């Protein structure tokens, strides 16, 4: 933690104030990402991981809004920052990669137009230079004959190619932070691993910090340095990637890992977590997971606090699983 953090999120609460009541999509979430580090933000649908991502870039649409907490980017507070300042940062210092590459490129604009306008929006460079940088960026993400691809329209590219273009656009302005919102979910598995590999390489080489939002533990275990597990808008467990995967402390994390099929347990039925994700509207106080948890008891009606363990491990549970050696 001593190394300067690129992104520090502290007690972030983003709520959606609907007529039916407040939806606490993100409730008291804290984490930090250092330079060149990849943080995996894991959770099931509706656990608030995407909203966390959008909160960081300041693009939570009404009725949602950041109720409290702080988001510090390179030491600068982003909660309450002006729209102009946020726009200067977006696409420049903070970039985003989205889930569906079929949808994130404008269908009527050529690739070169879309890449170059990203450069023009943030720096005062000539056409020639912008074109060269776009071409180099496409080359870096492993697109063959980038000159030709620059002249294509999105519909002429495959899904994997388009996601590579999206990643190239994200890295164009050499940002300090990239938020990747399930970027490989819409791709097939072979392309997925290539994309992950390339994103990882780019981060390592450029020192870019990355928040990789996903529901897929398998993806994140090989990619992330640290993992944060979210459940019903709350951070339930955080720690180093190997620590969380090998020795989960929170029952929910353990349940998630147990429900991934693996070679060791061939032929055995898969474990599954009973019940459903609770509705986030007017969530009762206390641990949101208690109804589905086999370790829950009367104590869980209270809200468990975040317990900081050794090695940067955080767990929010009254009855954590035995961690063995800790981190």
């Amino acid at each position, binding site marked *: 933690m001593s190394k300067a953090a690129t992104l520090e999120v502290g007690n972030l609460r983003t709520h959606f104030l609907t007529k039916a009541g407040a939806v606490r999509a993100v409730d008291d979430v804290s984490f930090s990402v250092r330079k060149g580090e990849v943080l995996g933000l894991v959770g099931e649908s509706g656990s608030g991981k995407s909203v966390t991502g959008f909160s960081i*870039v300041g*693009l939570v649409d009404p009725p949602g809004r950041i109720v409290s907490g702080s988001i510090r980017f390179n030491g600068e507070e982003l909660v309450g920052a002006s729209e102009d300042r946020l*726009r*200067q*940062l*977006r*696409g*420049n210092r903070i*970039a*985003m990669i*989205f889930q*569906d590459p079929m*949808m*994130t*490129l*404008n*269908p*009527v*604009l050529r690739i070169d137009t879309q890449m170059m*306008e*990203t450069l023009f*929006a*943030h720096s005062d460079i000539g056409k020639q230079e912008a074109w060269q940088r776009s071409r180099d960026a496409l080359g870096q993400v492993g697109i063959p004959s980038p000159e030709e691809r620059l002249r294509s*329209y999105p519909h002429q590219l495959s899904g994997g190619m388009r996601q590579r273009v*999206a990643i190239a*656009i994200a890295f164009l302005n050499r940002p300090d932070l990239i938020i990747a919102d399930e970027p490989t979910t819409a791709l097939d598995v072979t392309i997925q691993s290539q994309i992950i590999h390339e994103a990882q390489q780019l981060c390592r080489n450029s020192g870019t910090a990355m928040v990789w939002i996903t529901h897929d533990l398998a993806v994140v275990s090989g990619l992330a340095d640290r993992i944060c597990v979210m459940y019903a808008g709350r951070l339930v467990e955080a720690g180093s990637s190997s620590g969380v995967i090998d020795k989960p402390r929170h029952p929910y994390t353990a349940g998630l890992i147990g429900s991934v099929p693996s070679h060791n347990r061939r032929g055995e039925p898969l474990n599954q977590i009973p019940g459903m994700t609770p509705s986030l509207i007017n969530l009762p106080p206390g641990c949101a997971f208690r109804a589905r948890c086999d370790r829950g008891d009367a104590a869980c009606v209270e809200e468990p606090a975040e317990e900081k363990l050794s090695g940067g491990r955080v767990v929010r549970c009254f009855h954590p699983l035995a961690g063995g050696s800790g981190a």
Partner: protein
Amino acid sequence: MAAIEERLSAVEQSGKGAETPFRRFMSDFLDSRVATAALVTLAAIVLLAVLAPLYVPQNPYDLAQVDVLDARLPPGSKSYQGYTFWLGTDGAGRDLFSAILYGLRISLSVGVMSGFIALVIGSAVGLVAAYAGGRTENFIMRVVDIQLSFPAILIALMLLAVFGKGVDKIMIALVTVQWAYYARTVRGSALVEGGKEYVEAARCLGLSHARILFRHILPNCMAPLIVVGTVQTAHAIALEATLSFLGVGLPQTEPSLGLLISNGFEYMLSGRYWISFFPGVALLITIVSINLVGDQLRDVLNPRLQR
């Protein structure tokens, strides 16, 4: 195997033929024979009208060339200066063939220009409404609703009664009654496009509002806009003809098609059909061919109707 390879290469060939979006669009458009005929007719009409001063026997607006002694001659009669009035002459002695082509120039230019101005204003307003949302959108769209709840002819009549006659005034009237159609169309598709992820992505790239609106959203709204634009241009031409027919449109000295029809109207019952008939036919052909082209555009540009 050979057959498959042949077909593959054929597919490749046809793929190459339809490479650019424009070429694919054109081949789709020309699929329909009726639409092709309409497009050719329309192109011919526009060309004839634009080039009219180069070949018509008489400038019908130049009073020195018009002789009142030639008034109401039937089609085919000889002028007293030697040339033939193929379509006859009107009550003022104008050669109808020349007058129709000159009238077409006015009708087409008024229709196209007012349509274009209305398109620009309407789509800007519609885009802003869709993008701004909230109260701004509500306000703009209620104004549009009010505008559209009045019959176009009523608004145009009132405006012209206030302003008086003239090409500029009729254009103002036509723009006033038309912008709302464009605003509504653009707002509808901009709302759909604005919800798509590429707009979110563009916002994440830190692009300015103007850039997102005009470079990202607007081009994606073009298809319905082109269709509405064609249909509304035909409407504008018809409306201009109606207003001129009613005598509030263009001045007598520079008759458009509507005014020519209205001039001949009083002679209809006395058997001098040609003064109204031929301008009417010209107007009909023009509007029908624009509408046919518009229909085909709608079919080609609407992905849901594609076979």
